[in-house]
């Protein structure tokens, strides 16, 4: 539970640090916020939302409060966080709730993780401003703009959507269970896998990061591998818009995790299935009975055994880092997901 911050403007529930600082700065009522932003620039702290010892120390000194008061405003130990210039996801429900409470909306911690696709409060699929190079603060501003342009229209929550677009939203449902599982696991520094194995969260996320290499592709490259790599994804709009300006130089690869939530749901759903999260598996089993999209999950679509040698690259990188999950990842290359998840293919889809 967040501790109170006496004599300082209060952060919203689950609000991220930078959002709180920028709101405080904008209100102009407390000069300490401006001082903190100035000092961060002086100390070259570019990302105010990384759990940084120096940053927390600065905040604690300026506001004359214990460091513990600020730590809950940061994502858990910087695990698998979207890069600062890609934080373009938001929940329209949270923003509207802030507006209705008479507040300037704030950015939430739960939107900042790479695995986040659904708002845990409102159950809406997170929306994207669709812009690269946005900080959390820019995102909130653009999101309010879009929300107002869209007449404050709220999307239906995921449960309602499931009945309308089951083929697509099934992945979102499975990915949401994976999101919930990770959110519970990262409360401690250890991750307990459903297989019973316990590993450090750092190793787990490093393994996931490396595994996701297989879903990366060079920007503007020929897309001949795409059908293999993305074959598990539902019918979708292909993210084909080119990168703009200076971003191209810094981003030789496109990270599918930076895509809109509905676009990355397929990947996360597969990860949930590979990790063996019980709720992911049971939902997948239900979906497999209703739609052919889910009846034949294959790890080959995530780990294509082609001339790129992705499997070797993944294996080598994990070995170089002495990652304890090397064997687990290697097993995933050829795992029989149908058997692992207990999927029974209906006669209709055979």
């Amino acid at each position, binding site marked *: 539970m967040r501790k109170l911050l006496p004599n300082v403007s209060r952060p919203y529930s689950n609000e991220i640090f930078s959002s709180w600082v920028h709101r405080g700065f904008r209100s102009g009522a407390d000069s300490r916020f401006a001082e903190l932003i100035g000092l961060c620039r002086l100390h070259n702290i570019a990302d105010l939302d990384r759990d940084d010892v120096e940053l927390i120390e600065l905040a604690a000194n300026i506001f004359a409060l214990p460091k513990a008061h600020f730590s809950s405003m940061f994502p858990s130990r910087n695990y698998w966080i979207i890069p600062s210039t890609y934080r373009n996801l938001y929940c329209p429900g949270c923003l509207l709730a802030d507006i209705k409470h008479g507040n300037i909306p704030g950015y939430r911690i739960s939107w900042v993780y790479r695995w986040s696709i659904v708002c845990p409060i409102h159950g809406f699929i997170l929306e994207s401003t669709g812009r690269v190079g946005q900080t959390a603060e820019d995102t909130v501003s653009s999101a309010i703009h879009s929300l*107002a342009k869209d*007449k404050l229209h709220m999307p239906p929550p995921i449960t309602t959507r499931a009945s309308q677009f089951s083929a697509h939203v099934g992945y979102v449902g499975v990915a949401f269970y994976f999101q919930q599982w990770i959110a519970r696991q990262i409360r401690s520094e250890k991750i307990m896998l459903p297989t019973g194995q316990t590993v450090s969260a750092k190793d787990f996320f490093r393994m996931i990061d490396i595994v996701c290499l297989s879903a990366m592709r060079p920007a503007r490259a020929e897309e001949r591998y795409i059908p293999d790599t993305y074959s598990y994804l539902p019918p979708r709009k292909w993210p084909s818009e080119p990168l703009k300006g200076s971003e191209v130089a810094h981003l030789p690869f496109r990270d599918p995790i930076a895509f809109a939530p509905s676009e990355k749901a397929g990947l996360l759903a597969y990860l949930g299935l590979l990790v063996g999260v019980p709720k992911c598996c049971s939902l997948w089993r239900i979906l497999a009975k209703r739609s052919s999209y889910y009846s034949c999950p294959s790890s080959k679509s995530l780990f294509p055994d082609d001339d790129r040698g992705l499997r070797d690259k993944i294996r080598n990188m994990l070995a170089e880092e002495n990652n304890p999950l090397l064997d687990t990842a290697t097993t995933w290359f050829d795992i029989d997901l149908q058997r692992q998840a207990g999927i029974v293919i209906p006669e209709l889809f055979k």
Partner: protein
Amino acid sequence: MDITYNDDHLHKEAKHVIHLEKRERIEFANQARWINHQACALIRNRMKSLTLLPQIDEALCCIIVGEGGVGKSSLIRRIAKDCNNLAQRKMEGSIHVEFRVGADPTLVNVIGAICEKFGTSGFNPRKDDIPPELVLLIRARGIKILLIDEIQHVLVANRTEQKKILSFFKNLSGPPVSLSIIATGTQEALNAITSESPLKSRFQVFELLRWTDGEELRAFLASYEQFLPLKLPSNLASQEIVHFFLTSFDPTTRQIVNRLKWATMLALLEGTEKIELDNLTRANHIPDITEAYL
């Protein structure tokens, strides 16, 4: 020489300050402080009444007029605080938005400044209409009051832009948002508003004047003295000090408060620990306080 003192003349919030270091006492004296007085209390109560009444289509608006330094900006900040307090008591979101007309007042900039208070960038206006997106945000947040500081800056714009901005304000005070506008400005701003006949009928005018001799000034000075971090009482409400304030310079709130702050700093630096005519006369500029910081 040690001064024998008691702290009976101080407000309970200021009692602890006299035990602090000289530097900290100077900083305490320099802080902006709100002292309620009759003229402001009268306006504040009327503005509170405005916030309590349900919204009507043609909202009632007010302009607080006065020359520079009489405390218009402080008053509007106080009204904003009153709105916040009211909202907190009702456990609701605040019903006001406060903004200051900038130095480059165009309709686009005014809309941009209001939108910024909603956490987003400006929406494109169509003529002088309120952008529909802004209408939605105002309604969603339940805004009833628009507080505008320095409305006279509108006069910097050319005539066409002035007309657009004033017409935009008129639209804000009518349906569909029906905001009560509370503005502060100079007499020239009032003239500009009253020259627009549709606006004239909507605005009630309140005037903040310079101080004159009377109970109100004495009460203000006596209250202010309670927050001066000095060990000895200064008796600011005395006839000779009141006379000094009224005859030595334009008796605006800013001038009086600045004199009091600087005289307090002199009293602290020189160790007299009270304001007297002597240090008050010499406190026509900020004193050299560097020795307290060395």
